[in-house]
């Protein structure tokens, strides 16, 4: 295999002491920056771009790979411990991860996330080596109707996280969809719900919504209850994953890349939708479904593995087609261009040493990330021993710094606090907050793809179902929706299940 020998050469490049050190520095810097909410991997790479000016292209790329993976992982640390997602790909992790942390299983959640990242990145990068040209070709074949069909599938999956009361769940989803409407309409440039403010013209960043609803809303809620129930410090349990945990997590770790890698590779992919789909899948498949919502480890392992595999997928389209599909990829593309390297169809031929060096350093960075972070998990989780008033004050501070850091505007802080109050009110009246966040993620994406599909077909509704892929996805949706009905007509294997289980 030609690519294998080249990969081995690549390892030769990546494993020189200097480059290894750079990768380690990159991973550390990335992790620290990723921990700050509001500064995602894209911003981290952009901020650290000048640091690499003095380096050789290949050394710089190796450092970027470290920063990228470190940044992605750092985001999940705050998600789990502080319920404050660092970037959009770790929003889903906060759901179960933070519940685990509150029950004294923070270390396990962090370890599940770290190993999930490792597995996802390993499988994702291997897939990058073996499948890059094939996947890239397929990715281009997908268009708006296909994306829209996947969004519909995601909406169907939302129903599994609506909570006990469907009405409240849907109310929350609609709140999210409404927040998602804010901003300029991408197709026509009309402004919607911006109240004349230019700062709102680009809509509200999903990280701000998630941090507002999760972290600020919860801090206010806890503050309002403190007098009623003086909080005991959160327990910190055993530091390591037990065998029971491993039994529950290995499948989600392996399933993650199946969802994440293809999503990362398609031009309208990203990590939000696949991580959420992974969550919904794990919930459906888990034997501990009742634990979901109160700290199921599968809900951390699956999405984290998905997120890192989708990062590898992103590199497929960037390296082989020169198409940046996420903000981070766009920054890395700009970084490549700084060195006069143009990613695209010819990159593998022209700069093969560099590309394989980069890919090898992705493997190296992944290993370093695990080695550096796994021992840190128990240390980080001690953070939660801080008495609650101080802990939540710290969370509020962190959330505010993060919201301000997104673009350095006071308006973002106001938006954060308004959404925080909304989160408080939703808790007060028993509305689940997760559907709202999903509404913000899915709503605008689905709208855009649907309108684009219709525009491409010049307004004909057949434009939504004119591809084999979209029809297949709709069939899956139909089966999922009709399953309860179908099951009634299928021969019963056993007597009626106990009612009201």
């Amino acid at each position, binding site marked *: 295999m030609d690519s294998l020998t080249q990969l081995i050469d690549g390892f030769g490049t990546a494993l020189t002491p200097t480059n290894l050190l750079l990768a380690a520095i990159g991973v550390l810097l990335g992790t620290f*920056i990723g*921990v700050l909410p509001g*500064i995602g991997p*894209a*911003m981290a*790479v*952009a*901020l650290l771009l000048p640091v690499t*000016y003095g380096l050789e292209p290949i050394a710089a790329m190796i450092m970027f790979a470290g920063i990228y993976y470190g940044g992605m992982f750092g985001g999940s640390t705050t998600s789990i411990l502080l319920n404050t997602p660092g970037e959009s790909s770790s929003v889903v992790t906060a759901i179960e991860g933070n519940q685990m942390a509150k029950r004294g299983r923070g270390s396990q959640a962090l370890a599940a996330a770290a190993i999930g990242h490792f597995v996802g990145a390993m499988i994702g990068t291997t897939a990058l080596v073996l499948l890059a040209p094939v996947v890239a070709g397929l*990715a*281009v*074949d*997908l*268009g708006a109707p296909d994306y829209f069909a996947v969004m519909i599938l995601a909406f169907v999956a939302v129903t599994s996280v609506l909570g006990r009361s469907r009405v409240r769940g849907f109310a929350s989803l609609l709140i999210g969809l409404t927040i998602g409407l804010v901003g*300029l309409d*991408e*197709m*026509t*440039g009309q*402004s919607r719900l911006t109240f004349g403010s*230019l*700062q709102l*013209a*680009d809509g509200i960043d999903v990280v701000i919504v998630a941090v507002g609803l999760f972290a600020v809303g919860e801090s206010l809620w806890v503050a309002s209850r403190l007098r009623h129930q003086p909080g005991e410090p959160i327990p910190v349990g055993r530091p390591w994953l037990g065998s029971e945990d491993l039994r529950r997590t290995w499948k989600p770790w392996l399933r993650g890349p199946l969802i994440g890698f293809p999503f990362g590779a398609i*031009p309208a992919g990203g990590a939000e939708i696949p991580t959420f789909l992974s969550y919904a899948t794990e919930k459906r498949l888990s034997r501990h479904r009742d634990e979901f919502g109160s700290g199921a480890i599968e809900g951390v392992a699956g999405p984290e593995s998905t997120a890192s595999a989708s990062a590898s997928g992103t590199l497929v389209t960037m390296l082989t*087609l*020169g*198409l*940046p*599909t996420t*903000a981070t*990829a*766009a*920054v890395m*593309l*700009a970084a490549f*261009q*700084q060195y006069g390297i143009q*990613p*695209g*169809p*010819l990159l593998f031929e022209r700069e093969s040493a560099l590309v394989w060096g980069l890919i090898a350093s992705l493997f190296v960075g992944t290993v370093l990330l695990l080695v550096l972070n796994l021992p840190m998990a128990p*240390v980080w989780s*001690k*953070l939660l*021993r*801080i*008495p609650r008033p*101080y802990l939540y004050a*710290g969370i509020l501070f*962190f959330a505010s*710094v993060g919201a*301000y*850091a997104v*673009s*350095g*505007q006071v308006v973002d802080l106001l938006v954060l606090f308004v959404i925080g109050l909304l989160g408080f009110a939703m808790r007060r009246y028993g509305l689940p907050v997760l559907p709202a966040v999903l509404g913000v993620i899915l709503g605008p994406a689905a709208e855009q793809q649907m309108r684009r599909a219709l*525009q*491409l077909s*010049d307004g004909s509704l057949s434009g939504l179902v004119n591809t084999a892929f979209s029809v297949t996805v709709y069939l899956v949706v139909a089966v999922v929706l009709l399953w309860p009905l179908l099951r009634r007509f299928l021969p019963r294997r056993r007597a009626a299940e106990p009612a009201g289980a």
Partner: protein
Amino acid sequence: MRAKPVIAPILSTVAALAAVLVVPPLIGSGADDGPGSQVRGLRVMVPNSPGGGYDVTARTAAKAMEEGELARNVEVFNLPGAGGTVGLGRLVSERGNDKLVMSMGLGVVGSVHTNSSPSSLQDTTPIAKLIEEPDIVVVARDSPYRTVADLVEAWRGNPGAVPVGGGSSPGGPDHLAAMLFAKGAGLTPKSVNYVPFDGGGELLASVLGGKVAFGVSGVGESRDQIEAGELRVLAVTSAERVDGIDGPTLTESGVDVEFTNWRGIVAPPGISDEDQDRLVELFTALQGTEQWRDALERNGWTRAFQTGDEFGQFLADQNDQVAAVLTELGL
């Protein structure tokens, strides 16, 4: 009740790191003008997200200035929002600040109109136009259209069935180019089925996959795909042919349209004439550096240097042109 001693150091490290990493990009590095002719502490605002066109231009220029020893500690920061008008508003409000400039271009001119921005480029102090980048009309390798004439014929026949993709939202450069092309080809701009994509990447995927009939985008974004033979260029939109791109101009193809996207630098209003001159000198000196010349070639940018009042006049003309096109479209 009490925090374990381990925790405080971690928290304070994190907080310190937060301060170090977050604050400098947001707060100015202050006036540290030392002796010598080098400009110090200049800040370049990019009203766009990292990785975009203004960003690449600004970072390339900053790097060339530092390597060419024209300036020290040039800091590039992003203040994205509303097609650049959020950054523009900030620039206009920094009246008299001689350490701040903004990287901008044609897209901002359009956004001022589409977003009804309260501040316009006429409020700024023009410094220099740096580069031009023509747009190109591209189709996928297996597209039925071989020439602009083929395309125009089909387009005139049924504009709705010939969707055109562009990498910018309405009012942006690709949108303007597509509309001017349509007008030149005898179509009413309102009948054009323009599909906006989020940046060049998503657009290219749609052109490659044949989702849109053709795409209008910057040369730089698709150079490699063209070289690899996956995209065919039907025409370039500039007045002259472009080196390394095998395609006629629109005018040569019988559509009388010339269009080039451009990028430049503006400063806040109310700075003194000396300060304006000093910035103009800096960017003039930039033209002479080897690093900048290399960057132009590498990115496929055309040198289009123009300074001060001449650039100011150019901005005003562009503003009128864009306004005319957008009014016709009812935007």
